[in-house]
């Protein structure tokens, strides 16, 4: 028998050894495949792109025996491409996924019936979460009035300032109620000098090459890139006027603001040297500051609400955001919803999130926790949690759109030209708005063609 087998193997054209290797490969491949089928994939998967979030979720789920089959995976920034491919191919989809606000738009494009995320509106309404959370935070993840993500954060913005420097100017933070008040103080603070030297002084850094600080100030004033119906409003008179006032801050005589430096750490260093009077920061940036700027700023800074655009106006804005979404084709949406509530609406986890990341959660009930009243030594013992939560309900709604990422990119593309005076604010914003409208019109035409079932 063995003899016959060896003879047979000898007849194999490439020879006996390649045949043996082939058989070994087949055998091991089969074993691996069978083991994978037997063990089976975890019944529910959660994807995130932030390691702190993954740790938080794992700790939360570890407390729950019923959630032992839930696997949390931190895929870093590569998660977004993997998710895009998973949605495209409808394979290996997670049951729950954290999506950053600037990229969620790609999943909200097209007719509602084709959106690959579960519509959470009815669940949120039925269970009362819309009332219990900051309602403005759902706007980013909504299209046509339907909500496709649970907000992770509120991200209220404040002004971080050097109290000693402000005192030298003869100002108290409570006197800086409006941007005009702030600009007057900043102009007194101003000293000329080239970047790279230690002689210059500016009120605060504003980006001259990207639109994000302008948008934050526009949101504070009640404007937006899109309205609730998803139409472009970036060329509205309010948006144009805000950009003109933004430029006036940067270019006044003397200027009330200066260009943002190359990185946050350079901004922190300039604040520590007294070259900036203050800087804009969302809640999460306070954690970054405490981590990366400890040696520079610990015990030397405090926070205050943003000055309003008009007396009695809104004292905060927002930057950034993340939502937890349920991919529609992943299956088990009800179970995913139950896990989502444990991850995003569990008071203990939300408190821990603030403690480790300075992130104010959207669930109002969590704000009564003593952690928000703890003095922060980094901020001269100030109760920053209380300052942030008092501003949280004022955070403006930022309307989501499938075209948000493109809007940001198009605005960034013209922003340096605007701040350099090569193009007027009105022309720049009109250009961005027109391009967005053209892309939207093209997509609408394609959807109409697809529905009609014909080629052009």
């Amino acid at each position, binding site marked *: 028998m063995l003899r016959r087998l060896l003879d*047979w193997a000898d007849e194999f*054209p490439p020879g006996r050894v390649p045949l043996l290797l082939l058989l070994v490969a087949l055998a091991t491949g089969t074993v691996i495949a069978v083991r994978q089928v037997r063990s089976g994939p975890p019944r529910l998967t959660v994807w995130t792109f932030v390691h702190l979030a993954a740790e938080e979720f794992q700790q939360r789920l570890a407390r729950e025996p019923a959630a032992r089959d839930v696997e949390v995976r931190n895929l870093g920034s590569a998660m977004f491409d993997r998710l895009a491919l998973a949605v495209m191919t409808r394979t290996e989809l997670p049951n729950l996924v954290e999506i950053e606000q600037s990229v969620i738009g790609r999943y909200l494009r097209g007719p509602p019936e*084709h959106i690959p995320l579960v519509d959470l509106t009815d669940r949120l309404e039925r269970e009362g979460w819309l009332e219990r959370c900051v309602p403005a935070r759902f706007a980013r993840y909504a299209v046509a009035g339907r909500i496709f993500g649970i907000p992770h954060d509120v991200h209220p913005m404040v002004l971080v300032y050097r109290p000693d420097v402000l005192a030298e100017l003869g100002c108290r933070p409570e006197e800086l109620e409006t941007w005009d008040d702030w600009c007057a103080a900043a102009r007194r603070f101003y000293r000329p000098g080239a970047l790279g030297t230690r002689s210059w002084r500016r009120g605060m850094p504003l980006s001259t090459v990207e639109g994000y600080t302008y948008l934050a100030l526009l949101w504070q004033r009640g404007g937006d890139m899109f309205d609730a119906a998803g139409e472009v409003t970036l060329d509205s008179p309010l948006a144009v006027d805000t950009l003109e006032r933004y430029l006036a801050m940067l270019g006044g005589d003397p200027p009330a603001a200066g260009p943002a430096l190359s990185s946050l750490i350079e901004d922190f260093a300039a604040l520590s040297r007294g070259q900036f009077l203050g800087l804009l920061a969302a809640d999460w940036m306070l954690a970054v500051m405490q981590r990366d700027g400890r040696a520079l700023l610990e015990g030397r800074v405090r926070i205050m609400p943003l000055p309003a655009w008009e007396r009695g106006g809104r004292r905060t804005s927002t930057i950034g955001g993340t939502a937890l979404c349920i991919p529609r084709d992943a299956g088990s949406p009800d179970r995913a919803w139950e896990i989502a509530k444990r991850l995003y609406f569990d008071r203990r986890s939300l408190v821990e999130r603030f403690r480790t990341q300075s992130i104010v959660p959207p669930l109002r009930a969590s704000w009564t926790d003593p952690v928000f009243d703890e003095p922060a030594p980094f901020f001269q013992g100030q109760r920053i949690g209380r300052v942030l939560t008092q501003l949280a309900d004022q955070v403006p709604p930022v309307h989501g759109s499938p075209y948000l990422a493109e809007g940001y990119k198009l605005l960034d593309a013209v*922003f*340096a030209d605007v701040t350099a005076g090569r193009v007027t604010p009105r022309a720049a914003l009109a250009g961005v708005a027109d391009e967005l409208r053209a*892309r939207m019109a093209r997509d609408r035409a394609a959807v109409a063609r697809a529905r009609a079932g014909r080629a052009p």
Partner: protein
Amino acid sequence: MRRAWRGAPASAAWWFLAPFLALFATFTVYPLAYSVYLALRQSVGPGVDVYVGGDNFARLLRDEVFWESLGRTAYFAAGSILGQLPLALGLALLVNQRRLRLRGLWRTMLFLPVLVGAAFIAVGFRLVFGVQDGVLNQLLGRLGVPALDWLRDPDVVLNTLVLTGVWMFTGFNMVYFLAGLQGIPQELYEAAAIDGAGAWQRFCAVTLPGIWPIAAFLITASTIGSFGLFDLPWVLTDRGGPGRASTTVMVYLYERGFLAGDIGYAAAMGWLVTLVLLVIALVQLRVTRARAD
């Protein structure tokens, strides 16, 4: 059973080729064919997909951002070739010196940047290129040169990428030149020396012709590599910023395909870039062949 094996020798080559062909068809032919299919379609989100014929290509030809991105990529390619290759050759000549101490160490150190990931480079070079506290501006300041905003000045940022590219890839190119230099027979140098040739003449008459095939290969490879430049502007200059000042063609392709979800347009862009590269490669091939002749 024996007959089955006996019938096979004529087709033995196919047995050997079969695994490769299967993988090649699955991972190369099929994606290429599928990208042609995509280039002829417009998608709106994951659920809507319509045939648009050559519309994506027609739009691309009118798309100023695409051509500007292509221009920036060509600038980077030219800067890389002109910056990296002479430097790489110089370093190769240096570390090829028998009298040089710790030659192995020098070679390893010069090659090391290739092994560093783009994300680490982004973090490290932010400290180098910072406008206020960056190492480079501090050094320039001591020489009386005013600070440059290496990462945020639209007129400067592309040169910052070229400089970083030179740092990253010069060592890699050096290794190729080193291999070429070591392949030149020593007798040629000895004969040239006997004929009275000086160092410069030996370099021009022996070294350069000896390494020319490698230089030609590196020019083509650097050009193709430069047109694939993505991770450096993505991480070092915040996704090709400021504005679009460092947006290369691959960054723009990614932006349209993955941020905007216009996969068909991105596929069309990929094919057009391939065409441009093909033309460049053919021109380079002709020039280098003429030079070799």
